[in-house]
């Protein structure tokens, strides 16, 4: 067990050219799919949660195939945290905006007052914005969960 | 009785309470601090006295502060019984303040600011108890009094004082939370009110068994009255500085206990109810044990303050005894004894303190011949003792006489015997002190040249209270009138 841990630390395990190349190819498509799931969430199966998880998984996949540092180089923890926060802010912000505009919380039809559109259209668009926010938040949470846990919490953030 | 809405009852309570602020702020300048104390004392007595004529004329004052529980507001009300007690307490506080100054300065006590502040809170609470219009308000001030006297008992801050403080709180808080609070709630549950109403509120509301239980809870629960078996705190509390013992454990605290019991007996139960259920007789027999037993124990005490404490325990039960007789004379005697005993006992404590200040002696066996060095103190002590024993021409005689008459009226010869026996015992534990002070030869080989009368600040109050004891025999009118108003409006 000790040995395995030692080897894992020196990253001798898992550094396979085949896997790395495959991941390199797959990640963009995974992310694209994740975006699709998010965007299409309010209309068909899918949504912010699922899409966010897929997006997060793509970062995790990079980290698994290469190593933590590489994945962090691509997508720094700071960006990640900001995106996560921005996601939640977007979600609550939209809800709050509805309320501020005189509707009920998350009642997107109130957004008519910003851009006059059909309330039904606005409902669709509003839920879309919320899904994007949720997706961003879930993605960042998934990624940071993995990072924190796999680095034994030695990243500068965490508990 | 017509009650006038007025701010004065509150003023009487608030004045000493507010005085704590300047007292604490002027801790660095003792003269200023003590001026505040005296000012508050004088002012309070003036306020109380200013209400006296109205009360004597059959009126009263009332002030509702807040309706905290449905039907039970925090309410202050000045009636004859409350006025009686407040008058005694506020009058004696002035002398206690003067005495405190002399005592504390002579002994160079520490933490005097805390001492005077706590004292002011205690007197405020005492007046609050006197002016309470219902049981809840009374309970409130009762607890405030317990807490404010705790720092006074623990004043010395050594192991003994802390242990006594613990004992004090255990008894006082334990009984008030454990016994009075449930009893009060049961009364509220039964009647929906806690107002002190002449003639009582409990008649016909509960079974005799419940009522007996309630009476027991109240009498034992107001442990400040020192009814056995919850009397142990009083001797323990004697570690406090003597002015505290004198005023609080001679007048304020213990009388608050008795006053609370009297309030409950007169205005919650009502004398008629007690008479009908024969609860009064039970009560008198119950406290008779305390009277005799405490007097016997007092005989054995060598520490002067402890002897006085046991004497107090016995005397307190006289007052409850009087109430329990439910005869006119008996009740009059019981209530009157509050005042008479207060003047007598405070004199005795003042004297004990003066002896301690002058000679640093606590034990009676060491006090042989001291009376020749301090004749004024011992003379005052003699007067106080006579009053407690119940000899004419001192105030104590009036109350004891009424008690005796009451006992005879209610055909309780046992009580007559108890009263007479106890008076004999009182004489037995007081006279030796005086005798030894004046006539016993000073123990050989002890330097006594330095001993002389205590400072004027100590001597003056004790002389005045002793004289008051004497005067009360000749001019008891005000107090008698108040008692009459309170019991038979």
């Amino acid at each position, binding site marked *: 067990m000790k040995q395995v841990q030692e080897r894992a630390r020196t990253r001798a395990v898992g550094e396979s050219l085949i896997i790395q190349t495959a991941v390199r190819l797959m990640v963009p498509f995974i992310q694209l799919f994740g975006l699709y799931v998010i965007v299409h969430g309010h209309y068909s199966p899918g949504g912010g949660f699922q899409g966010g998880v897929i997006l997060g998984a793509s970062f995790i996949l990079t980290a698994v195939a290469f190593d933590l540092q590489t994945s962090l180089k691509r997508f720094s923890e*700071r960006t990640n*945290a*900001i995106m996560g*926060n921005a996601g*939640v*802010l977007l979600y*609550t*912000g939209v*809800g*709050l905006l509805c*309320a*501020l505009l*005189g*509707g*009920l*919380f*998350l*009642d*997107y*039809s109130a957004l008519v007052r910003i851009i006059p559109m059909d309330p039904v259209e606005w409902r669709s668009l509003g839920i879309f914005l919320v899904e994007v926010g949720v997706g961003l938040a879930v993605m960042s949470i998934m990624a940071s969960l993995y990072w924190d846990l796999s680095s034994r919490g030695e990243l500068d*953030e965490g*508990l | 009785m017509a009650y006038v809405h007025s701010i004065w009852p509150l003023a009487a309570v608030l004045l000493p309470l507010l005085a704590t602020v300047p007292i604490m702020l002027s801790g660095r300048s003792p003269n200023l601090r003590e001026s505040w104390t005296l000012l508050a004392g004088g002012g309070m007595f003036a306020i109380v006295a200013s209400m006296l004529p109205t009360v004597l004329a059959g009126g009263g004052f009332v002030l509702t*502060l*807040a*309706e*905290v*529980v*449905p039907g039970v*507001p*925090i309410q202050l009300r000045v009636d004859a019984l409350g006025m009686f007690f407040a008058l005694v307490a506020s009058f004696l506080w002035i002398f206690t303040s003067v005495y405190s100054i002399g005592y504390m300065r002579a002994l*160079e006590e*520490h933490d005097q600011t805390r001492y005077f502040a706590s004292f002011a809170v205690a007197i405020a609470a005492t007046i609050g108890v006197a002016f309470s219009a219902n049981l*809840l308000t009374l*309970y*409130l001030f009762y*607890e*405030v009094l317990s*807490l404010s006297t*705790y*720092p006074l008992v*623990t004043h*010395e*801050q*050594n192991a003994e*004082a*802390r242990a006594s*403080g*613990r004992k004090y*709180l*255990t008894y006082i*808080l*334990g009984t008030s*939370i*454990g016994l009075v*609070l*449930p009893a009060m*709630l*049961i009364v*509220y*549950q039964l009647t929906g009110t806690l107002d002190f109403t002449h003639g009582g509120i409990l008649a016909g509301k509960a079974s005799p068994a419940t009522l007996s239980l309630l009476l027991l809870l109240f009498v034992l629960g107001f442990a400040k009255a020192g009814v056995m078996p919850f009397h142990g705190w009083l001797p323990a509390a004697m570690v406090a500085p003597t002015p505290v013992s004198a005023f609080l454990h001679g007048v304020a605290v213990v009388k608050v206990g008795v006053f609370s019991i009297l309030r409950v007996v007169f205005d919650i139960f009502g004398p008629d109810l007690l008479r009908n259920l024969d609860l009064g007789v039970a009560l008198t027999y119950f406290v008779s044990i305390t009277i005799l037993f405490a007097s016997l124990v007092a005989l054995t005490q060598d520490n002067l303050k402890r002897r006085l404490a046991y004497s107090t325990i016995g005397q307190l039960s006289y007052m409850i005894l009087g109430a329990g007789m439910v005869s006119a004379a008996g009740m009059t005697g019981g209530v009157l004894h509050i005042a008479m005993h207060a003047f007598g006992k405070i004199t005795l404590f003042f004297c004990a303190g003066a002896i301690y200040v002058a000679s640093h002696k606590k034990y009676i066996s060491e006090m042989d011949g001291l009376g020749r060095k301090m004749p004024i103190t011992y003379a005052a002590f003699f007067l106080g003792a006579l009053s407690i024993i119940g000899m004419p021409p001192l105030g104590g005689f009036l109350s004891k006489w009424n008690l005796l008459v009451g006992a005879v009226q209610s055909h309780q010869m046992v009580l007559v015997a108890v009263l007479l026996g106890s008076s004999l015992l009182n004489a037995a534990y007081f006279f030796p002190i005086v005798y030894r002070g004046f006539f016993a030869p000073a123990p050989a080989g002890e330097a006594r040249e330095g001993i002389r009368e205590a400072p004027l600040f100590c001597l003056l109050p004790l002389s005045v209270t002793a004289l008051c004891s004497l005067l009360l025999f000749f001019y008891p009118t005000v107090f008698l009138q108040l008692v009459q108003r309170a019991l038979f409006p």
Partner: protein
Amino acid sequence: MTTSNLHIYILAAPLLGAFAVNLLGRLSRRWVAPLTLGVLGYATVAALVVLARVLRDGTISYTVGNWRPPFGIELVIDPLGALMLLLISAVALTATFSSLTSIERELPGREHLFFTMYLLLIAGLTGLALTGDAFNLYVLLEITSITTYGLIAMGRGRAPLASFNYIIMGSIGACFYLLGVGYLYLLTGTLNMADIARILQGLQETAALATAFAFILVGLWVKMAFFPLHSWLPTAYTQAPSGASVMIAPLMTKVTVFLMIRVIFSIFTPTYAFFHHPGVQAGIVWAAALAIVCASALALAQRDLKRMLTYIIVAEVGYMVGGVWLANTQGMTGAILHIVNDALMTLCLFLAAAAIIYRTGSLGFDSLQGLYRRMPITMAAFTVGAFSMIGIPPTAGFFSKWYLLLGGIEASQWGYVAALVFSSLVNAVLFFRIIEIAYFRTGEAGHGHGHAVVRVEEAPLMMLAPLVLAALALIAVGFGSGPLVNGVIRLAIPGGF
């Protein structure tokens, strides 16, 4: 459709604030304090307005996203909920002043993370006071719990282990609740509380209903640390950073008690909860009595101030559970009043503990010696809190105890009455022990005459001010308990029970 969104802002403000703190706090620490305080200050004022509005106009129903109940999520603001709303935001606001100071020292550089969780927790608690949906309640319960796990784990020493124990116990509780809700859903096909209640009335009483009730109750009991299920609480609250415990300790258990009342009133009727199984009702009161006695006894054994306080919290939970299950108006009044009072008392005492630990670094009884000379104002406020815990008038604690005892007497539950009295006495022993140490034991420096002058080292104003405020609030609530009961709490109790 109501256009008033004030109540949702109370929920949204800390939620939004949490992430704003996280974002901006990353940039600069200076953002943390004004944002947190601003958000909570706003929430408090809004809660006050909402309470006034609810008292004037009656219960407000709010549908999130304008989806009609029972399909959409409904928020219900009844007088009790509005009272809780005010309590939560006011206590949180007061506590925040203190935690801003203590966290600056305890977790330097991580304030923004701490206060993100802190505000999320408050948002969760606010949501709990508002929600009218059984499943939503579960989610919010878990939001509060997860943030609490995190906050506690940020403490030192054994904190992570304590937090883990809490996670296991808390999750079991939440799962039980979820299971109970599942049974209810099977029975009624809806999750809206009012809807469930309506449908349940037409249903026959079945074992499934009893199962649902039992699961929900046990789940909530675990979360509120009702006595035999309390084992996680003392260590977790003791080890938490003092900035976290000043907020968690007053609010978490109390809000859960409120949830129990909510469940009994809004989902199951009091008639069902109390009177269909009289043995159960009496049994729970006895269990509460046992809880009070045992927790008080355990508190006696502690030698650390904060740990002692945690056991008192456990005992107080017994007070409230028992009060609710006395099944009469007085008891229920007492329980609700005690939620308010206990939150304030615990706040006061924990604020004092935080101030003491800030100055002395320890809360062991030995380190309290002579403390009143060093920190006179802190100790004075602590004393007020202690008096309230003991139940000395006119502090608030007396009056809730009054109603609880009255309820016990009315229901002839003498065991419960005795337990309450016993606990008051134990509290007196506990607190006077500390008062004696702090006031009258001045160490070897010599008692009696001629003390060395001790320098006054009060806690910083940011910790002292909320503490004094809490102490004053105890007295104010004590005097105001009459109007509070008549004006608010009586409205919250449904008639005819």
